[in-house]
């Protein structure tokens, strides 16, 4: 099977994730889009590892998964506390970090 398909799929998934992060307002959805981007990158890593026959890409993909897991923990906790204080999970409501 042609590995290029995997790369195209990875790019598509990354693009969907990026657009999701930019246009969606629900913090949970934004978060899931980030996960989507991470996994798109993982797919690309693994594909390149397969194409070059070297193990490096797979190892990095594993690292990304570990970091993503940790990030999920922290990120969800932040979203939880924002929701608790504001009764809203919209990222546009939490706009205090500005001039």
């Amino acid at each position, binding site marked *: 099977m042609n590995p290029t398909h995997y790369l195209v799929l990875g790019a598509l998934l990354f693009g969907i994730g*990026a657009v999701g*992060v*930019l*246009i969606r307002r629900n913090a949970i959805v*934004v978060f899931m889009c980030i996960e989507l981007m991470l996994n798109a990158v993982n797919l690309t890593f693994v594909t390149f590892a397969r194409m070059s026959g070297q193990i490096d890409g797979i190892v990095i993909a594993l690292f990304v998964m570990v970091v993503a897991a940790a990030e999920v923990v922290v990120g969800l906790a932040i979203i939880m506390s924002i929701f608790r204080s504001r009764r809203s999970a919209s*990222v*546009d409501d*939490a*706009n*205090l*970090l*500005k*001039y």
Partner: protein
Amino acid sequence: MIQALQVVTAAAPPAASGVTSLAPLVLLLPLIGAVVLMVGGRTVKRVAPLIGCLSVVVAFVLAISIFISTIGMDAASRVSEISLWSWMPVESLQVEFGMRIDPLSLTFMLLITGVGALIHIYSIGYMQHDENRQRFFAYMNLFVAAMLLLVMGNSFLATYAGWEGVGLASYLLIGFWSYKPSAGSAAKKSFVMNRVGDFGFVIGIFIMFTEMGTTSFTGVFANIGEVAKVHPGAVTVMSLCLLLGACAKSGQVPLQAWLPDAMEGPTPVSALIHAATMVTAGVYLITRSAEIYNLTDTGQLVVTIVGAVTIMVGAIAGCGKDDIKKVLAYSTVSQIGYMFLAAGLGTGVYGLAILHLLTHGFFKAGLFLASGSILHGMNEQVNMRHFGGLAKRMPLTFVTMTAGYLAIIGFPYFSGFFSKDPIIEAAFAVGGTKGWLLGMAAAIGAGLTAFYMTRLMIMTFFGDARWKNLKSPDGADYHPHESKSVMTVPMLILALGALFAGGILASGDRLVNWLAPSVGAYVEPHPTILTPGVITWGSVALMVIGAGIAYVLFGMRPVPVTQPVTRNPIILLARAGVGGDAINESLFARPGIWLARTFAYADARGVDGVVDGVGTSIVSISDWWKKWQNGYVRSYALSMLSGTLLIAVALMVVNFS
């Protein structure tokens, strides 16, 4: 850029040996005295005058012993150097700190410590009732130390250090009675006007360094001949720069106006600093730089012109003043003019400048101490119109003043006669129109000297006792009385010097021959346009005429107690100090103020404008830019994404092109 010449390493004078090697101690003693008095506080308060006097007296004794041991040597070996430490070892600027003990510096050491010791002792009495006499003696000792450094240093840089030191001490002592606003402003005036001269001096030293790479006397004198061949202009500029420094320090035209104002200081200060020693530093500098001036006719000509003009300016101004100390101050200006004239006449007669300097040191210090004694007995009144008939009340002061008077007017066979007459002869000996101009200036100056000094004597000591019907500025009656012996004894010693020092020093050309190793052999001037006899007795005749006119004007009719109103332009000119302050005002003050205002304007509009402009534009750019920081996560995410894309695209462009 002028290339420094290949420096000739001159054979340095031999190192000092025997008692001469103790010379640094002469300088150190007054310095220690000054430091002890300054930091000692109350612990030394009771013995402050003792410490002040003792340090100078011991220094004087040391100087005498060095002098005696030097006299015992043959003329050739009388110049020696003491190398102390490496002062400024910076790449090509290697300045050794050391001392040069030769007849010239020894003469000055004796004058400074000798007259200094007498005036210190006099000050015990004069400053007896002053709360701050510890500070007074500290400054006086500081002055003596700085003045000794000025004359003992073996390089122009060391002289410059002493030069600034005496300037500081002079400033502190003029403003000693700082509760008087006039004293404060006089101190500032002297300090600022001396800066003008110091600027010239320091530029002169810079030129020495660029041309010869050294500032030591030995090095400069060994190389100056070579410089004169390659860059004669540089030697002239150097000599004029040094002259500017000398003019400011010695109160010569056009920088003379600070000296009369300096009389705001206590009278011993006027006697020591502004009559006998510091103001003669300019003469020392020119005499010490004899080898430079000998090579430049322009430089020497300017020195003689400055001297001749100053003789006249000082003498004319002295005739118009009623303040006894200001008359003496202008007299100092005029007498130093004689020294400059002699120094400018150059080769062979430098010694005459020093001879007049020494006799002047004696008689002018005596005159000032006597005037201080009068002030002491007359509630610090300085206006001579309040005096009169004091001869009987203050006999010893009168004797001192008379001795100084006979000496300064050049009465035959007293000190001033022996020192002033050769200068007048030397001026005539130049020959031609120049000789006539310089000679007549000097001779007429002698006549004017007799006029204003006779006026001073008559107004102070003779005539009606005008003080009987007047009150002093503080409203008290005058009770003139003779001063204590601690004041009169130093006065009388100086009076003896005023009477006989000139004869002793001049007989057999003793002094000028003694100075020969430092300033070159003495060549007796032979005036051709007039015979020496005519000159001598002609100036004596002028002196008698001057004194006679003064007697007719002030001795034969009563002196008004207030200054009479007059329209006589000569009298008005004299009262205005011959425009000394006007020159300052127009030459230095106004351009200075104008320059300062221009700079202030340029600073407010130019510099501040640029600085403020940079700030304002950065603020307005940020105001626009900060709109990006809107707080929405997605806009931050977009900027991150676009940044990443930008980098990716840039990498691709680089890799694939």
